[in-house]
């Protein structure tokens, strides 16, 4: 007998609303339906109503966890239009923040993964060592999250030389603790029993579903924008791309854990070789044209496309976040495993739903509203609400 076990839209498994309909027979999952769209906020449209320099503050609010990735990719895209390169010091600063963010995001995932297998001690311990990193962000940029470090043509803030030792001190602590977590997690037979050979995504499926980031690298598919298309300081430092062949949840966890070590390596080298000089170039106007920006976010490749007509705001801004690609692969990865595994597999791609949501209205297989119609509907709704509250 087939039954439906809903995961979402509101479920303890996920922090954000998204709907996974597990179709189960007993405990076994036979099919999965994914229903996105509970968290749509219309960022692409809002971005087309803001000036070039306002957009980074908007796009960094697309995602609360990888809030450096979106402005990073946007800034790279606009620099691509205007044919400018950031000064070397700014490039290094952006790389450092990008990598520190990767560590904090991977640690956030690791803690949540511990929570999802019912191991709350791992959750609390991992987050305990993530906490100093957030303090470090506050020290460098004044904010625990939403760092606002990226600016077209450079960086908004400098990392002061007196802050270097504090960053190094944290990296030393983290290196030790990361080794501890790696050993503790890989040596625990019960954890291995839960993660090994669960939610296997083969390399073929990974390529067919165009997954990115640790999800792809855990399946043996080497794709990393930092290696394939290096930007900023990534080709000036020495680091390795982490790839595991197995494709199960354990492989994804291993990729993330070991990637933290690589991030530590990158940040250390950046701090050592940090060039002196200005942190921004003057940008007078953005010429008409189009450009793309790619950044390897903690979850995979973030892709921004921006078109300019020479005015002071973008005429088209397209965002593609990695979770949008990764979540779709769950349909393959979850089939044939139990409900207990499904919860884990769904979380293993490190989903970020607020990056993912798009809106389409379909009726009888036909698209019902165009983008403009949806806008009109939303304006009408706003007017209605305003009128209701005026009374």
């Amino acid at each position: 007998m087939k039954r439906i076990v809903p995961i979402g839209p509101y479920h303890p498994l996920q922090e954000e609303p998204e709907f996974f309909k597990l179709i189960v027979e007993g405990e076994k999952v036979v099919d999965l339906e994914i229903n996105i769209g509970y968290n749509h906020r219309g960022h692409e449209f809002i971005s087309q109503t803001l000036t070039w320099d306002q957009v980074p503050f908007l796009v960094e609010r697309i995602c609360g966890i990888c809030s450096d990735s979106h402005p990073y990719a946007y800034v790279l895209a606009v620099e691509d239009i205007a044919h400018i390169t950031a000064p070397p010091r700014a490039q290094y600063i952006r790389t450092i923040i990008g990598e520190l963010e990767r560590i904090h995001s991977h640690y956030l995932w690791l803690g949540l993964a511990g929570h999802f297998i019912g191991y709350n001690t791992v959750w609390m311990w991992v987050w305990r060592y993530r906490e100093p990193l957030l303090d470090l962000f506050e020290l460098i940029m004044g904010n625990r999250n939403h760092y606002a470090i990226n600016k077209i043509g450079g960086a908004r803030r400098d990392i002061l030389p007196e802050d270097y030792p504090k960053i190094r001190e944290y990296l030393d602590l983290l290196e030790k603790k990361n080794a501890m977590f790696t050993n503790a997690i890989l040596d625990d037979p019960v954890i291995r029993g839960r993660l090994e050979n669960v939610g296997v995504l083969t390399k073929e499926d990974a390529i067919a579903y165009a997954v990115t980031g640790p999800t792809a690298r855990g399946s043996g598919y080497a794709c990393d924008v930092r290696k394939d298309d290096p930007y900023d300081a990534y080709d000036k430092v020495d680091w390795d791309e982490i790839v595991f062949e197995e494709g199960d949840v354990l492989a994804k966890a291993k990729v993330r854990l070991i990637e933290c070590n690589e991030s530590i390596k990158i940040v250390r080298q950046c701090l050592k070789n940090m060039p002196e000089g200005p942190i921004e170039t003057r940008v007078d106007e953005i010429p008409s044209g189009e450009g793309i920006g790619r950044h390897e976010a903690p979850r995979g490749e973030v892709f921004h496309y921006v078109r300019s007509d020479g005015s002071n705001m973008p005429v088209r801004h397209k965002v593609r976040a990695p979770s949008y690609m990764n979540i779709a692969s769950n349909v393959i990865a979850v089939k044939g495993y139990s409900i207990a595994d499904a919860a884990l597999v769904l979380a293993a791609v490190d989903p970020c739903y607020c990056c993912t949501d798009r809106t389409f209205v379909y009726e009888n297989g036909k698209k019902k509203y165009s983008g403009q119609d949806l806008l009109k509907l939303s304006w009408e709704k706003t007017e209605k609400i305003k009128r209701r509250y005026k009374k």
Partner: protein
Amino acid sequence: MNIVRILFSYIIFPGFIFSAVVGLFLTWIDRKVTARIHWRVGPPWFQPYADFLKLLLKETIIPEGSSKTLFFLGPLLGLVGMSILAVMLFSMNFYPAGSFVGDIIVIIYLLALPPIGIIIGGSASKNPLASVGASREMTQYFAYELPFLIVLATIILKAGGSIKFGDIVLAQQVQGPFLYSISGVIAAVVILLCVQAKLSFVPFDIPEAEQEIMAGPYIEYSGVALAIYKVTRAMMLFLLPLFLISILWGGFADWWAIPKFLLIIVLIVLMKNTNPRLRIDQALKFFWVGLGILSIIGLVLAFYGL
């Protein structure tokens, strides 16, 4: 006069109220120790009582179309079972002579009442997650009951084949606790893991896995009914270690029982915090193959008097 005394023992001491109060306090110890392991502060001591009172004042919602009788029978069954168990444990330990033939079998059935209550309540909830949880509870019950019964057989064998609970306690007072022998240690390891599963603590909190099936059988419960479930769980946290001490560690009629009791509680809480949750098939394999074989070895050793 007699009826008053019986009512007093079932409702106030050592029955419902006493074991509920102590049990809720133990859940505070559990929460506090867990919090300290997690580098958190943890709740104040009166938190479980406040939670319980709050639940009593909340509205009880009955899901539409579910059987009202079964929906409330679920929580009550466990509570009644645990209240009777409390009275039996205390009377057998302090007046072993008052034991009747076969009372250990009665205790086995009383210990089965909370899981049966959860299965009934979960199935009556008309919720897919609750029914998944109920079916997991059923599987888990059958999983841990096999090694549990073999261990009880070991203990009956060690007590000279008597199925009177009082005789088990008396035998230990004469020849020393059963724990101090190879088969006794094996029995203790097996039964401690079974107790962990009976309490539905990690790694065996499979029926109510909040990240997978959102508290499973309890999902539709609210208000008084949920409070009864919670207090039953708290009473089990009090009574199961006591049961362990009485069958393996010489009974709890002396002051040494308190450190023994606390040690068992600490072991349970540590096990809870150093393990991830198992999958139901892994748990079944663990209990039937791993612990099953171990408990049979214990039984054979006990047969040869080791």
